[in-house]
């Protein structure tokens, strides 16, 4: 595969990029910090990637999206897969009284994530399709007390991705929405760990197999599909009482 990633310098995105490298794929890493990107590129090369190139792109600066994807296209000789795993996180406690930070989370995770996917979409459709993989979250499945704002951004993103899949799959654009459950990364440190927590390397393995079979939605760890099925059924009266 020829993969472009935004968000692969950290977390699950980093683990997933290593799996691409292990397959011998070509990778173009997008991110904000050139030094960090260079180190990640060296890491992926040592792990078997056919080639790794890098470019600057910032999820908080939508003007960077189109030029970054054009540069990626040139570096890879036409990409066939785009993975967006960048995003911002904040608990309700973090964001409830910090309007500035709340605005960043809302803009990065919804508006700008959608804009990035739109830039990827037009380029992939123009060449007859490809894979678009974006990380949403199980937090988008219900409005819940600890993640009201964050959950809302992911709900919006999931809805957008579902629509893309409905509209364009027949034209060859395979959209995969990744919905991680609780994963032990730097993003979730300090949070109380629920049952069924996963590690980034295992989760990435689940995501890769979902991507390869063209799954429209991937829950990872997979058990979260079941957990969320139950949570989706809970009446609001219950959701008001529980603390998760």
């Amino acid at each position, binding site marked *: 595969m020829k993969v472009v990633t935004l968000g692969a310098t950290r977390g699950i995105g980093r683990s997933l990029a290593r799996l691409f490298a292990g397959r011998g794929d070509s990778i173009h890493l997008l991110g904000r910090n050139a030094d960090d990107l260079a*180190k990640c590129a*060296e890491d992926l090369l*040592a792990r*078997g990637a056919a080639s790794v190139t890098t470019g600057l792109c910032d999820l908080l600066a939508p003007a960077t999206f189109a030029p970054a994807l054009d540069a990626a296209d040139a570096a890879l000789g036409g990409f066939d897969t785009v993975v967006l795993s960048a995003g911002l996180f904040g608990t309700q406690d973090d964001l409830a009284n910090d309007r500035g930070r709340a605005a960043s989370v809302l803009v990065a995770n919804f508006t700008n994530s959608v804009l990035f996917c739109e830039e990827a979409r037009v380029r992939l459709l123009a060449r007859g399709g490809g894979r678009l993989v974006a990380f949403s979250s199980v937090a988008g499945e219900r409005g819940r007390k600890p993640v009201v704002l964050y959950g809302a951004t992911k709900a919006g993103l999931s809805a957008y991705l579902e629509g893309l899949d409905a509209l364009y799959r027949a034209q060859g654009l395979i959209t995969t929405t990744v919905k991680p459950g609780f994963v032990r990364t*730097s993003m979730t*440190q300090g949070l109380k760990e629920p049952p069924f927590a996963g590690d980034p390397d295992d989760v990435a393995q689940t995501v890769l197999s979902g991507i390869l079979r063209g799954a429209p939605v991937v829950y990872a760890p997979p058990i979260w599909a079941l957990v969320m099925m139950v949570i989706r059924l809970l009446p609001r009266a219950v959701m008001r009482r529980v603390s998760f």
Partner: protein
Amino acid sequence: MAEAQLSGWGRVFGPGREVVSEDLEAITRDVALTRGLARSYGDSSLPTPEDGVVASSRLADRILAFDPATGVVRAEAGFSLLQINRTFWSRGFAAPVAPGTQFITLGGMVSADVHGKDHHATGSFGPHVRSIRMRLASGDIVVASRDENADLFKATIGGMGLLGHILDVTFTMARIPSAWVAIETEKMPDLGSYLAGLKEAARRYPFTMGWIDTLGASGPLGRGILMRGRWADTREAPAETPRPLVRPGLPFVLPEFAISRATVSAFNALYYGIHPDTPRRKVEHPETFFYPLDAIRNWNRLYGRRGFTQYQCVIPEAAGAEGVQSFVSLLRRTGGSSMLSVIKDCGDEGEGLLSFPMRGTSVALDIPAREGVQDIVDTLNAHLIDLGGRIYLAKDRFTRAADFRRMEPRLDAWREVKKKYDPSGRLRSAQSARLELT
């Protein structure tokens, strides 16, 4: 909310919490200690109650450089042995040492100067390390090697992370003909023949180790299974690279009656019994041979709520087979019920000022952390001191400071270097405070 708790692999908890980030330089600025995957058994990776926080290197795990011509790798401190194996076995390289678990990081491998089944042949990890980049107590970042800050380098190898936060490590891997292992297992009726077999095997095989039954209230002292192996050559080995094994976990902590003298005796009898009486040769999956205990992810939950400690010591060659015999019979009398007592030969002492291995015989056994564990450790230590041996800090949780001083004549030399690089003793762990290392 309950106070945050941390523990080592032995699950004896103490107060503390981790800060974790891909950016290890950022999180080591204000803490007294860094830990990796927390596989040291006792309190080596725990903060003192006053410090309360440790940095975790586990997400700082990038390979920074790899030279396929020489097998030299530079990687961040959180890069794990598991990743070394998964990344390099298929390309004809292996880690230069063969410890008993793959869930350890480079930083930990340096700090404990880990050794393995091949210690008699290749030494501990230290000799294969070329340089270490680290953050000192002052906050400065320096490089230590045999040519640069050589005193710091020697004190850091086996120095339990107390000289500085290890940020990245450059080391040389070993070339292997295949990633499979040709092994031979043999039943040994008693400790004497086991020890003789171990010595004999060490001459012909790079990997030797084995298991002995230290309970066996009846029968000869220390019947056991001796294992020896080498990397399989290309004619013996299957053509494909070994696939990672699937590892189930132990989903909950077992009740304490699960590990008692009766159940452990039964396990030992069964384990001995299922091995055939004549030596067996075969080509084995490397994970099965090197990491039998990794097969169950949370096997440390076996020992119940209060956890366990591992007692590992080395008895110097000068004490002879009689020394080992006397130690094992003491084990049998003190009666810590140990499922697996591992006995193997160690080669020469390395350059690390506090490194564990020395020429002699290493004995390791698990002891449930229940009433009397302190007395058992004290009794074993008293005899160990008489024999001129020492304990392994990476396993220890109960040794007393005075006993450690008696078994470590090298401590003063190490302390001198520690004083030079950390005059105010800022970098410390719960263990270094308990043992009064600084």
